[in-house]
């Protein structure tokens, strides 16, 4: 039974990345990276056996396809985001090149994180397409397209991009959307400033390396002071070199923040879709009301609503009772259908709200937990950096005191 969360049964990892070349859709040669997904049963480790894991290779575009499918199929869920398509918030030392090994490595980690998030979600983890993404290397793409999700995607995408106004916006969702906006804005700012600060910090540390060189040169012309200066110079070199590790660790923190930057977008998407659902309900209800009004007018002969038919009948003469009867009958059918539609849409809306709100609550808890963890590990990183700094300068101080 696949009701239990996938991750409880299986260990999933994105173990490696490799470069491939091949012909693309327009028959041109291209280089791309593929990632190795491995799955092994959780029990395997405890049993002591070490079976060969199920594994297959996927490229980034396939992950994108999977996510798009999930977005369309579960519009009421906050779908975990993928790592960024292109490197953003880059500071000068960091490469913006997708082929850069550091970028590829961070992407590998991000993709693994994505799979783990999906696999631990109570609803998403049970999805068959997701399961076959992890197990069927060939033919998976066709399977996805066969679901026909693209058609739904196109129409929804069109609707999402269009501007519409909802008459009675749900306060909770409006607040959530606003929260999503603010979260996205503040994390963007945080990442931007942090990148600039990282750049500057790099400069500070690296310039100290110049002390290393000049102390060495200076020690050559000194007698008693020479040894102390020389050793101190080495510590300055070590200090300058230490910044690389420091900033690499900080990049991991930036990635954690980026995940929630993109999560904010996913949250806003749910709210937007809810608005759309509500809008469609309102449209159906409006349409029903207008049809009912038309029926009333036809039945009583009074014209309250403007209709082209009404005007033409006035211009070209009254219609026959048979014609009126036919029209009334058509309206009745339409009203029946309309009432069905409204019932449907209403149920859809209620269902959406219920499911969405459960997932939003789940997301809130996850976010609070994850971000708190991220902040703690950031503080620990800073502590480690300070301790290293104290050590280096103490070493240098000892050398100076021996001058």
């Amino acid at each position: 039974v696949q009701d239990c969360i996938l991750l409880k049964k299986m260990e999933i990892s994105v173990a490696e990345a490799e470069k491939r070349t091949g012909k693309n859709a327009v028959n041109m040669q291209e280089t791309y990276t593929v990632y190795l997904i491995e799955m092994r049963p959780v029990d395997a480790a405890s049993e002591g056996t070490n079976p060969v894991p199920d594994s297959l290779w996927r490229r980034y575009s396939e992950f994108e396809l999977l996510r798009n499918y999930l977005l369309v199929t579960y519009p009421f869920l906050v779908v975990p985001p993928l790592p960024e398509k292109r490197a953003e918030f880059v500071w000068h030392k960091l490469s913006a090149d997708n082929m850069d090994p550091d970028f590829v490595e961070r992407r590998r980690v991000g993709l693994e994180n994505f799979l783990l998030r999906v696999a631990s979600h109570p609803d998403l983890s049970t999805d068959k397409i997701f399961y076959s993404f992890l197990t069927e290397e060939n033919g998976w793409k066709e399977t996805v397209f066969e679901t026909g999700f693209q058609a739904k995607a196109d129409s929804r995408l069109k609707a999402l991009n269009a501007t519409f106004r909802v008459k009675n916006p749900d306060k909770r969702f409006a607040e959530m959307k606003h929260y999503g906006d603010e979260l996205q804005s503040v994390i963007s700012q945080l990442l931007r400033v942090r990148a600039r600060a990282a750049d500057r910090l790099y400069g500070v540390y690296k310039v100290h390396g110049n002390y290393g060189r000049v102390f060495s040169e200076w020690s050559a012309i000194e007698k008693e002071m020479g040894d102390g200066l020389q050793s101190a110079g080495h510590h300055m070199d070590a200090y300058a070199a230490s910044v690389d590790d420091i900033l690499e660790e900080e990049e991991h923190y930036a990635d954690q923040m980026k995940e929630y930057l993109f999560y904010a977008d996913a949250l806003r998407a749910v709210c937007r879709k809810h608005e759309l659902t509500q809008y469609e309900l309102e449209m159906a209800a409006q349409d029903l009301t207008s049809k009912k009004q038309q029926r009333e007018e036809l039945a009583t002969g009074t014209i309250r609503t403007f209709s082209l038919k009404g005007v033409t009948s006035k211009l070209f003469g009254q219609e026959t009772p048979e014609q009126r009867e036919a029209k009334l009958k058509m309206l009745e059918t339409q009203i029946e259908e309309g009432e069905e539609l409204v019932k449907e849409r209403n149920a859809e809306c209620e269902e959406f709200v219920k499911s969405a709100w459960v997932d939003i609550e789940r997301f809130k808890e996850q976010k609070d937990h994850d971000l708190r963890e991220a902040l703690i590990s950031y503080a620990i990183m800073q502590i480690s950096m300070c301790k290293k700094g104290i050590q280096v300068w103490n070493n240098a101080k000892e050398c100076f005191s021996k001058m």
Partner: protein
Amino acid sequence: MSAGAPRSLASSGQKSIQDICHPLSAEESALNPGSAADTGLILPNGTPVDTSSPASSSSLLNRLQLDDDLDGETRDLFVTVEDPKKHVSTMETYITYRVCTKTTRTEFDLPEYSVRRRYQDFDWLRNKLEESQPTHLIPPLPEKFVMKGVVDRFSEEFVETRRKALDKFLKRVADHPVLSFNEHFNAFLSAKDLNKRQGLALLTKMGESVKYVTGGYKLRARPAEFAAMGDYLDLFTQKMGTIDRIAQRIIKEQSEFLMELREYGPVYSSWSSFEEDLHDPLEGVSGCVSNCSSALEELTEDMSEDFLPVLREYVLYIESMKVPSDVEKCQDRVECFNADLKADWDRWENNKRQDFRQLLTGMANKNIQHYEKCLAAWESLVPLLQDKQEAEGETS
């Protein structure tokens, strides 16, 4: 130098060159056994002595006599420069400093003095010392001229930097076994009013020419070791220049980093404003970043105000040691001058070593303190964040 013991080396202005004894100080060489070997002298206990110079044998005696005067605790002259004050008159505005003296020397009438002096007075003193002690290296003064409009001569920072440099100048003179007995120095410390104005212009002019005459001897008559000194000074100046540039560059990079930090901290604060559970952790991080910013600001200021000026002073010092000249040399005076120079050179070397040890140790300390402040801030945050976590775990 124990109180009351006569110092046979007291020099008081214009004496015949031959009468001036070699002031090799036991103090210096006892502290600095290495430099004794460098000067080529040997004490009876085994270190080499150069007896070719007529001055050095008497100095050997002096050295033995002064053998017990080793540490600074037996100093008998203490000088400080403090309490800068602004004076406004119809003619000009200027700063004076209080010069306090405490001494047991019999050359002084009183044990304590407190006088007010302005930069002009220090400049006068230095000129007089150069005139009257041409064979010695006179410590430098901070720069005389400041470009108006570029530097605020009355700002707290400038005045304080200058005060420190003037203090250092007087202390060096006071520690010098010959210069400290100079009558002009005595007058500078003790006289209520330096009665110099009338003769000032004339004396200064004369002083200049004397400087050129005698200064030429300083490094002109150069046996190999003095050539080496000159080369060393050139290289040393170069290295100091490089260090100055590096320090400035670091300060600049740190300032720019500080600018980013000042924007970074508040982002966490504004984030906290629309979070509930995360409000406190985010505020906490904001506070930490802010503390680190302040710590960095202090570090940068310290380096600017303490480190750089001292470094630059050394460059000035060296400038004052290199005096250009095209004066004929007088051969029989040369050796005596050279011996004095050697002694002062060793003193300078020793001071330099101590000064730089202090300077660089100070730099290391400032950096350590900076990191310790940041460490304290972050360490105090972690348990707060983790406590809340545990509390949440309990309630959920």
